[in-house]
């Protein structure tokens, strides 16, 4: 049974967590993800979940306690944003290396400084090398759907990695949206009973976790993480297909929108993908061959699917809601351009850094990008391949 409801992104995520009914949640307040924690604590207070809720004194401890719980053999979650994720940074790496299947929503928000509470992706991009799976969500529906699927992905025997579910702070987290949520029983059956392969609380098989690894073993253990990430690409697609059966909604590694015959494509994640699709539709109505590519998984990076989806286009604009200060553009730009290199198709790729600190991406901005791509195709030249959309110059 499916229910159509009006929920904010945070409410949708909190509902998903209620349905997942984790054994332990350890979390700390931060704007804009705090609401999830507040709502969840009311589920705990009212007996709607079986969860032991740990009100930690920091995000560092939030992830640390979640790791302890997960290592103990519990299904454990946390939730954060921005500085909170930055503060967790150290232990996010360790959670990944310990192969703990922790699912944690991240309502994306700019990083200080200067301090800013609004949306961009610099928090998520800060942990792109941590070894956690990162799923991105266009709207509240996707945030909800990704949460449910994340459990299955994280706990899959071939994966066993943390999964962060990203959705845009305020734009998605606080805006009311209409979405479908599954009934509790369907979710319960879909995620199944958690059976950890090892657990600190298993009296029959005590285990030492977090051992000291020297140069004779460290490299191999790091490669195990690479292999798990590789496997995750397959598992994300498999779980997506299975999820389609209970939800009617399809999920893969990427969402290729009107790309089959497109000459121009915009590559963009999270809520801005929705705006881009709207502009794409309008331009299509005018006869322009435009499309949108929305990576759903950013880590692992689905480079094969991206190259496949973009192989026929002539020009691509990659939209990054984060800076790298490398002077070589945003984080996704580097990965997308890299993915296209071996096609040898002379696809022109241009980068737009946009929306930092919550600045709106207007529809006119997206139209301008397509118009720029049109110019690039006509002239065959990309001058200034890193551009700052809407920056006052």
């Amino acid at each position, binding site marked *: 049974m499916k229910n159509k409801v009006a929920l904010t992104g945070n409410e949708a995520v909190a509902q998903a967590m209620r349905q997942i009914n984790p054994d332990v949640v350890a979390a700390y307040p931060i704007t804009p993800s705090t609401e999830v924690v507040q709502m969840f604590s009311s589920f705990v207070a009212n007996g709607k979940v079986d969860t032991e809720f740990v009100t930690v004194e920091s995000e560092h401890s939030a992830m640390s306690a979640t790791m302890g719980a997960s290592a103990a053999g519990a299904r454990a979650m946390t939730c954060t944003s921005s500085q909170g994720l930055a503060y967790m940074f150290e232990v996010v790496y360790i959670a990944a*290396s*310990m*192969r703990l299947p922790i699912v944690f929503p991240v309502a994306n928000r700019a990083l200080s400084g200067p301090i800013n509470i609004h949306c961009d992706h610099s928090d998520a991009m800060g942990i792109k090398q941590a070894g956690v799976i990162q799923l991105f969500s266009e709207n509240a529906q996707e945030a909800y759907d990704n949460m449910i699927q994340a459990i299955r992905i994280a706990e899959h*025997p*071939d994966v*066993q990695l943390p999964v962060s579910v990203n959705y845009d702070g305020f734009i998605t987290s606080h805006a009311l949206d209409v979405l479908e949520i599954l009934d509790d029983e369907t979710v319960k059956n879909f995620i199944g009973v958690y059976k950890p*392969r*090892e657990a600190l609380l298993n009296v029959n*098989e*005590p*285990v*030492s*976790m*977090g*051992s000291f*690894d020297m140069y*004779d*073993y460290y490299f*191999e*253990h790091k*490669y*195990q993480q690479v*292999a*798990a990430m590789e*496997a995750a690409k397959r598992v994300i697609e498999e779980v997506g297909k299975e999820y389609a059966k209970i939800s009617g909604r399809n999920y893969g590694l990427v969402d290729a929108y009107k790309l089959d015959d497109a000459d121009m494509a915009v590559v963009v994640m999270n809520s801005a993908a929705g705006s881009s699709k709207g502009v794409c539709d309008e331009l299509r109505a005018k006869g322009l061959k435009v499309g949108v590519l929305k990576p759903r998984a950013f880590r692992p990076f689905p480079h094969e699917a991206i190259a496949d989806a973009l192989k026929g286009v002539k020009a691509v604009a990659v939209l990054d809601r984060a800076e790298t200060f490398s002077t070589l553009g945003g984080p996704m730009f580097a990965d997308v351009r890299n993915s296209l290199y071996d096609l040898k198709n002379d696809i022109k790729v241009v980068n737009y850094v946009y929306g930092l600190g919550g600045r709106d991406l207007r529809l006119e901005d997206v139209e301008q990008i397509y118009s720029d791509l049109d110019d690039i195709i006509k002239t065959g030249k990309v001058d200034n391949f890193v551009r700052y959309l809407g920056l006052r110059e």
Partner: protein
Amino acid sequence: MTPSDKNLSQCCSSKCISPDMNWKELTKAGNIYTPGNASTYETGDWRTIRPVWDEERCIHCLICWRYCPDASIISTGGKFDSFDYKHCKGCGICANVCPAHAIEMISEDEIEKQKEAQKDEE
């Protein structure tokens, strides 16, 4: 391909895990599924002096057992039994805490010489 999450061969002893193994053969995440298997790692060769037990003097108070940092005093039935020379690092604490002066620290070189002398006699 995924690494075996519980290395099959590790069930016997840690010696089954070795640096020539590839990433698939090693345990997941560096987990160790054999509690206390450090006992198969010998730290006895760190020793330059060794504790030697004087049975006559020993009053079996086990204060040496209490203060050994390396759990290298073996006791049976609540009595001193022997030193675990595989792990004893020769710190000398046991000899110092012994109220009956029943433990003497002797240089390993000296013991080596004595052994050789014995061999020569034979």
